[in-house]
């Protein structure tokens, strides 16, 4: 049973990726799980300058999911390169740097700095964070700005470029194509959906930032539809994510058109999710007589009605 998948030049030993934002830079996760469980890991969204993040409360439970408005709290690309990447690279798991620029120029500068660090195997261009005033989702809803941000990274980074897309895009197909035309070797989707919650006693929004990103099982149907759309619009592989908490969810995403799968808020609830999902995937493939996991990708639309 071959669980290996390819994302551009990047070879993953299995399709599971720790999604950006639930993994920090790996140190906290390593206390409760094994980083080597993953085929690759995506770092916390990293910006050119350090960011303190948004005022609390930053998270709240919602029906079958959660809202977050962390606000890209991170120590900045310099500190990440100096303190985090050397440690994380010791695990031998491909590192995807999630890069969040506030401008095309910032994307270019982060990419140029990452280019000098061979331990960074890929950049995930974050054009979809809903919790920052500048950059983020503002880039991700429009095909032209997705193209420009992708180009800015592509021209400064010679290894794998992935673009993380937002479900809020005017057309998922258009932004996925724009990423491909900009030089991306994969797209990941979805980032969170913008939502909110109100405290009926204080009569105010729960989150300090008013709105936040919705994730968890609640968004899974939306995510599946986005993967379905994007995978038929482009010829580059898709990293599917959005509410994966079981191997059955994982299979659905593969069938919808994903080549790899990222675990996000599911990992917050159960940090030991990866081995459970891998076991279920393997058993499913054996039962179904499939010897390569990548044979599942897109079967739901390839096999017709």
């Amino acid at each position, binding site marked *: 049973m071959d669980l290996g998948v390819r994302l551009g030049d990047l070879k993953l030993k299995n399709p599971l990726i720790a999604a950006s*934002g*639930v*993994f*920090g*830079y790996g*140190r*906290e*996760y390593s*206390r*409760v799980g094994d980083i080597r469980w993953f085929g690759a890991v995506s770092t*916390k969204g990293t910006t050119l*300058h*350090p*960011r*303190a*993040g*948004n*005022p*609390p*409360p*930053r*998270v*709240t*439970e*919602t*029906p*079958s*999911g*959660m809202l*977050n408005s*962390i606000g890209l*709290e*991170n*120590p*900045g690309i310099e*500190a990440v390169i100096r*303190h*985090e990447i050397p440690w994380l690279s010791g695990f031998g798991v491909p590192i995807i740097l999630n890069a969040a620029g506030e401008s095309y120029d910032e994307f270019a500068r982060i990419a140029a700095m990452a280019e000098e660090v061979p331990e960074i195997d890929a950049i995930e261009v974050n054009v979809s964070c809903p919790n920052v005033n500048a950059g983020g989702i503002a880039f991700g809803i429009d095909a032209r700005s997705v193209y420009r941000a992708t180009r800015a990274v592509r021209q400064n980074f010679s290894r794998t470029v992935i673009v993380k897309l937002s479900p809020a895009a005017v057309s998922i197909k258009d932004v996925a194509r724009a990423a491909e035309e900009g030089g991306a070797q994969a797209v990941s989707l979805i980032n969170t959906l913008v939502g909110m919650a109100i405290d009926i006693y204080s009569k105010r929004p*729960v989150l300090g930032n008013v709105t936040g990103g919705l994730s*968890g*099982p609640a968004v899974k149907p939306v995510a599946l539809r986005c993967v379905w759309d994007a995978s038929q619009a482009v010829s580059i592989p898709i990293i599917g994510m959005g509410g994966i*908490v079981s191997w059955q969810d994982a299979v659905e995403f593969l069938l919808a058109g994903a080549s790899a799968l990222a675990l996000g*808020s599911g*990992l*917050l*609830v*159960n*940090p*030991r999710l990866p081995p459970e999902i891998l076991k279920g995937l393997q058993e499913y493939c054996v039962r179904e007589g499939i010897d390569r996991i990548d044979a599942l990708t897109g079967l739901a639309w390839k096999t017709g009605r």
Partner: protein
Amino acid sequence: MSQDGPVGPQAEEPRPVLVDAEVLSNEAISLGLYETVFRAPELALEARPAQFIGVKVSAGRDPFLRRPFSIARVDRNRGTVGILWARVGYGTELMSRWRPGETVNLLGALGNGFRPGRFKHLILVAGGTGIAPMPFVCLESFKENPRASISLLYGVKDKDSMYPVDRLTQEIPGVAVQVSTEDGSYGKKGLVTGLLEDCLTRVSGQPSILVFACGPKRMLSAVKAITTSARIPLYVSLEERMACGLGLCRGCAVRRAGGFKSKNPVDSVEQPGPGGSYTGRSSIRAGDSYFHVCLDGPVFSAEDVDLEG
């Protein structure tokens, strides 16, 4: 870190474990206040006072996130861990229906915990469900320092919703418990800060007094004002909305007092977080930065955190 400070997990400290724990008992001990006891020997062995656990209320997708609860009781011989909690919303409504024999998934022990070290007089201040960590804190402090005096000052809405404090006084003869209720139905009428002021008047001038407080932020803020003017060290156990309890998501942020203080100079000291982990301390900009309750806390020296926000 001062000798009397909260003792955070160090690099060699035990890692959190995920356990399927059997509910041994789950019952209302007063109006809306519940106590649950789990069989969880691994947790019981490692848990320290003022640490917490992440409780997966039900096995499915809803409720989705774990709920953080202070560890209220630990019996290492029997391998049990207890939590005290108030039925206030959807998750706790479901918890109130747990029956003995059920299995609940727990993650812990989480957070730094509190060890008072050498003190002559420990004053514990609890407001409402802030009583939750106090039985464990009380018992361990007594074990560690049997000749010192321990006072528990407990403010609660009314007699009906009160934690039965005689449970504590029966176990630890030395502990002096005082209660205040908002309506005067038990103990002194008023807020717990009134009890604290009285208590500090009595012990004023004595050396080695330490205050540990847990409760609503407004109460903690008022307690901080009192201990600051009395020049007595205060440790607070904070609550914040939390997703993972593990430092993965950076969700449970609490604002630092005045940004970086000289204790934590920017970019000059690589100050490893609990568990030898990165918490962004050394590199995030000064002036506007946060601790995370799950990793840096839940116990903080009150002077380090902004309780006004």
